[in-house]
């Protein structure tokens, strides 16, 4: 039933102040929360450094010496920075490949498969295009982007048409991609006879290599630029608004007429394209051919980077740089101390663990105002 008050007084009513029992200062709380998240990341990093130190000490090596060696190898040694940036570039891209779908509410664990299959096809194509000089580079990169986008779209279509959860499909596609690329270089179209035991595609022309200018690889510049572009897109464009809305409340997105399936597909296509670009860049910029071990765990590192970057594209740059330092330095670490480079896998896994528990535990750091609201409106009034 509706009620109305008595007719209002003849003097102009003053604006009602906020009633004392309404949540105030929620804006302030959000700010603290945002700052809090950065603190949380730093604490997590510190934690993983300490745990890493313990693991290194357990191997009988001084952690301080180990970390020093890693940093020296990655940054100070001649050509170290270039190698680190070479490693950072694809990590930025595979990080973006997780971040963008995450904003839409999807988990793209398929970066590894998208990366690897694009690299394989790019390698085969670039080799086939030898003689085309610089053109082979353009073709290779384009092919990488397209193949990655297509590979990711399989998972996206399974999700939009059949509602299958993308975590399982992207992981299955990783495994399928692995099988395909092995076939390609052993008995398939890419196989190239070579003196070593490793199956691989043929070498690409030097003209198709990605250049390094003044110690900075072109790949890094491209990747960083793309990260900034993605950040701008997500926060300032209407397309970014659509992505965020679908990710935050897909029902409201439907109400607002946002084409949810198209957004899902687009986000995965972008992600796959970026991961594919990383694969092609690895072929053209680092190995100059394709072999199955290319890139190693780049795809999975992308997950860690996306979480370290708190789902913000621009922050993938420093996060990827950090991981790049660890990976590049690990080779020097093995040389100097005998510790296997897989220790970086372990340290990164622990970092991921420490970062993900509070940052993505939605409820722990929810602002007090939200808690109040939830309590006041749940279970009826």
């Amino acid at each position, binding site marked *: 039933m509706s009620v109305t008050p008595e007719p209002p007084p003849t003097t102009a009513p003053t604006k009602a102040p906020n009633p004392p029992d309404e949540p105030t200062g929620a804006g302030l709380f959000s700010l603290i929360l945002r700052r809090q998240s950065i603190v949380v990341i730093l604490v997590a990093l510190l934690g993983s450094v300490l745990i890493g130190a313990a693991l290194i000490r357990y191997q009988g090596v001084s952690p301080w010496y180990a970390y020093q060696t890693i940093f020296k190898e990655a940054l100070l040694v001649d050509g170290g920075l270039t190698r680190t940036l070479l490693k950072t570039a694809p990590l930025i891209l595979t990080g973006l490949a997780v971040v963008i779908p995450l904003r839409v509410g999807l*988990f793209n*664990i398929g970066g590894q498969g998208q990366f690897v299959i694009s690299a394989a096809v790019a390698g085969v194509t670039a080799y086939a295009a030898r003689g085309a000089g610089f053109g082979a580079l353009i073709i290779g990169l384009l092919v990488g982007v397209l193949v990655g986008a297509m590979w990711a779209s399989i998972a996206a279509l*399974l999700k939009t*048409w*059949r*509602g*299958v959860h993308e*975590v*399982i*499909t992207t*992981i*299955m*596609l990783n*495994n*399928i991609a692995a*099988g*395909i690329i*092995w*076939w390609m270089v*052993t*008995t*398939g179209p890419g196989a190239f006879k070579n003196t070593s035991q490793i199956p691989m595609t043929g070498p690409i022309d030097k003209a198709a290599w990605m250049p390094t200018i003044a110690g900075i690889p072109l790949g890094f510049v491209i990747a960083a630029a793309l990260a900034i572009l993605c950040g701008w897109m997500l926060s300032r464009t209407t397309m970014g608004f659509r992505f965020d809305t679908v990710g935050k409340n897909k029902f409201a997105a439907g109400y607002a007429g946002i084409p949810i399936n198209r957004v899902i597909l687009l986000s995965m296509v972008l992600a796959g394209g970026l991961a594919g670009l990383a694969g092609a860049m690895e072929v053209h910029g680092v190995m100059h051919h394709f072999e199955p071990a290319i890139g190693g765990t780049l795809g*999975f590192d992308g*997950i*860690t980077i996306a*979480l370290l970057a708190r789902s913000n594209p621009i922050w993938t740059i420093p996060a990827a740089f950090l991981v790049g330092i660890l990976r590049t330095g690990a080779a020097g670490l093995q040389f100097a101390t005998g510790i*296997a480079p*897989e*220790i970086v*896998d*372990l340290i*990164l*896994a*622990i970092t*991921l*663990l420490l970062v*993900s*528990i509070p940052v*993505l*535990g*939605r*409820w*722990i750091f929810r602002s007090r105002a939200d808690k109040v609201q*939830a*309590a006041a409106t*749940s*279970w009826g009034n």
Partner: protein
Amino acid sequence: MAAWIQRNKFSVILGVVVLVLAYIYYFSDKTTALSMYRYAWTYAVPLVLCALVGVIGERSGVVNIGIEGQLLVSAFAGFFGAAYSGSLIVGILSGVGCGLILGGFLAWTTVKWRMDQIIAGVVLNIVATGITSFYYKPGQLLPALMPHWSIPGLSSIPLIGEVFFKGTGVIALIAIIAVFGIHFALFKTTWGLRTRAIGEYPSAADTAGINVITMRLVNVTLAGALAGLAGVFLSMDSTSSFERGMSAGRGFLALAIMIFGAWRPLRAAAAALFFGFVTAAASQLQADQVINVPPQLVGTLPYVLTLVVLAVAAGRVRAPGAVGQPFVKEGK
């Protein structure tokens, strides 16, 4: 009966196809056929156990993407535990123990701390890969082979007896018992009713006086023991070695099997057998050169099959209502 067949058209068709193929093989070349079926069962055992882990978890309302990690770490712990201690029992206990610990980790972070369940599972898998890769040492050996027996009486049943009860190990037998046991428990006992309630509509259980949080914690943790057994089976029974990444996605195949089996243990077991049979048949056909597909591509068959199965099953089966949502007691 007719209505049941109508509702389960797809599974019935698959079942018929499988039976026909099996029958043909059996009557043309019995020895190869039997070895093929036994391979299928051996392939299916860890899948069955892991699918049960998924069923228990999701019926309680918790998604477990980390079964793969539990499997891998348990395989690692079992193998190296046995190799270093010289005792198979120690290996088995380490494996099961790791399954429980990781199950407990997943349970605690997702149920108590309300961490996103998918991320918790993904993180678990990555940590599992990291640990097992770094601490891997080649050249280790099991102290002995796992004992195999033939169950008197049961092993003389034609076909079924020869596959399931002849020369079988303890874990495979536990798997069979677990399937029937958990099915019974889930649908016929108080624990089962409450578990299903907390997975479908936890607040109804809460207001009925059931402790949702505790039940979820206990269920998910204890289910980890099954994953532990699966891992031990993988590195100590079906093979006698540990290789890095040897779980090879089985934890995810198990999830697809769970979905295909509509979160029911018996159907999931049938789905696992189906996967096993198809894999065995494919490699047999490839070995016999009946089909001419390169071996690496044949190896992708289980993964492709998973995609197909999921695409088909989606929309036909219904997940427990509250799966994936953290349970929050308001107020307090």
